[in-house]
């Protein structure tokens, strides 16, 4: 089988198109690259959905945590504490068990036990909590002069939030938020190893990488390929978030602009 055929057969294997049977013997380098790359579709999906929704949830949570109202602040603090204080791996297991028992009482909730919805929900809650903590920190360090100036101009309430508070918060939080986004993409690698079942071998990148490693008993090929894909993904995230950072800082003089510094990998 030539490499083009392999790509045709397996490029979308992880979402159920193409050849049904995974290769079993005589694994070629091309098969490694194609299947692991195919699994990356899921990693990108989990990451994108969780970040997209998590961004808004995190803004809300950060505002709630910063609020003077006890009834808003306490629940937000508790949510952030629970999701930041416990391992994501345990969160996956616990959530799956909860979803299973929910399914038994309410059959309509069946999709929650599938990883495309259930795991995404857990990742969403997790990234909301971590990002909310970052946003909260940024909210606390908004220069007080900015808010006083807004008051002096008579900018109040929603307008003040939209024009002053939120953009400044984002600007201050963006470098850390970039790191958070990178870590979230890395965290998606856990999904197929938590209890969410992999249906018809449609797994994510790490699922296929460990499939190859198990079959060939040779970790030196699939894992570096996986690493290659993740480094590529990391670079794309840095590029996109860097562009956003530029946009957020466009009104500042050159030397006061905060650069996005990518820190080392953090596990959760």
């Amino acid at each position, binding site marked *: 089988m030539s490499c083009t055929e392999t790509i045709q057969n397996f490029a979308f294997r992880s979402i159920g198109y193409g050849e049904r049977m995974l290769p079993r*013997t005589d694994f070629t380098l091309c098969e490694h690259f194609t299947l692991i790359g195919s699994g990356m579709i899921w990693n990108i999906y989990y990451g994108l959905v969780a970040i997209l929704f998590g961004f808004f949830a995190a803004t809300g949570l950060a505002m709630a945590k910063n609020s003077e109202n006890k009834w808003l602040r306490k629940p937000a603090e508790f949510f952030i*504490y*629970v999701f930041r*204080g*416990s*391992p*994501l*791996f*345990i*969160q996956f*297991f*616990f959530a*799956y*068990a*909860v979803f*299973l*028992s929910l399914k038994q009482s309410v059959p309509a909730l069946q999709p929650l036990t599938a990883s495309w919805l259930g795991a995404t929900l857990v990742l969403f809650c997790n990234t909301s909590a971590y990002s909310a903590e970052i946003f909260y920190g940024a909210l606390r360090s908004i220069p007080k002069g900015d808010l006083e100036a807004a008051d002096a101009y008579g900018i109040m309430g929603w307008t003040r939030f939209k024009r002053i508070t939120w953009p400044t918060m984002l600007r201050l939080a963006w470098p850390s938020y970039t790191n958070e986004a990178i870590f979230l993409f*890395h*965290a998606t*690698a*856990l999904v197929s*190893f938590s*209890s969410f079942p992999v249906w018809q071998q449609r797994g994510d990148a*790490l699922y296929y*990488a*460990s499939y190859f*490693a198990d*079959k*060939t*008993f*040779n*970790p*030196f090929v699939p*894992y570096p390929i*996986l*690493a290659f894909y*993740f*480094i590529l993904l*990391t*670079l794309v995230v840095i590029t996109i978030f860097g562009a956003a950072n530029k946009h957020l800082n466009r009104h500042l003089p050159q030397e006061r602009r905060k650069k996005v510094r*990518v820190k*080392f*990998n*953090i*596990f*959760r």
Partner: protein
Amino acid sequence: MFSYCTDPSTLDGLKWLSCYLTTGKHMSFYASFGTVLALLAITAPVALLFGFAGASAARARIAPIRWLGKSYTAIVRGVPDIAFFLFFVIALDQAFEWMRHKVKCPDWDQPIRQGSDFIVCDAAKLPLSSSPQWIHEAYGFSLAVLTFAIVFGAFAANVLYGAMRAVPRAQLETAEAYGMSHRQTFWRILVPQMWTYALPGLSNLWMILIKATPLLFLLGVEDVVYWARELGATKTAKFSDYPHGNWHMQYFFGLLVFYLAFTSLSERVFKRISARLSHGQATAAGEAQRKAAQ
């Protein structure tokens, strides 16, 4: 455990629960919390040692050593560490067996990689196939510890490298002015002062290490996650004296609470250490302490 536990089917309520929670398997479950703590207790100092070596190497004046240190810290960047965990366990195992193979069976003529198999001579197998069960478990556990130490050592190296650079340059210059050698400056001035700068990063790392311990399960060690899955699964009356439905939710909730308690306890301890370390330091925290004492 208790005398009334001989026939569990006649029991109910609290009595049943007290018997259920003290079965042999539950004792193994409780012991596995010890496994997690043991892993933390061994890994943290070893990783710190690796990190210290890495950070010192990254500052070395000899270029190859510096490259080695820098690439060690850089290699964990950009890749999910779960991939490292899965990779190192197999890779380390094969590396050890390969080395033993070279030493113990020099006249072995077949290739080690035969298609999809990794074959070494019997004398080089780790652990030996004749050794008792506990050696197999201990070997698996030490592989896991080594893997954790390598990965977290790289993180720690990153933190310590930053901390070493954060020590004010003037301090080192003063040491040089007093005629201290490079080595003396390093051990007497730099190392004692760097901890206050390293502590925020290290405490963060400790939290991450705690939260990474469930990965032991993936490395094939019978840890808390393994037992929670095992004990929480549905038990029928045919195979168990204590039949029950699917209790995964309850068991994993217990684990969740355990980890939450553990992380908040650590947070409190680190606050104390931080207060002690900033004592007398030329930092904002140290200055605040000095003002408060006046």
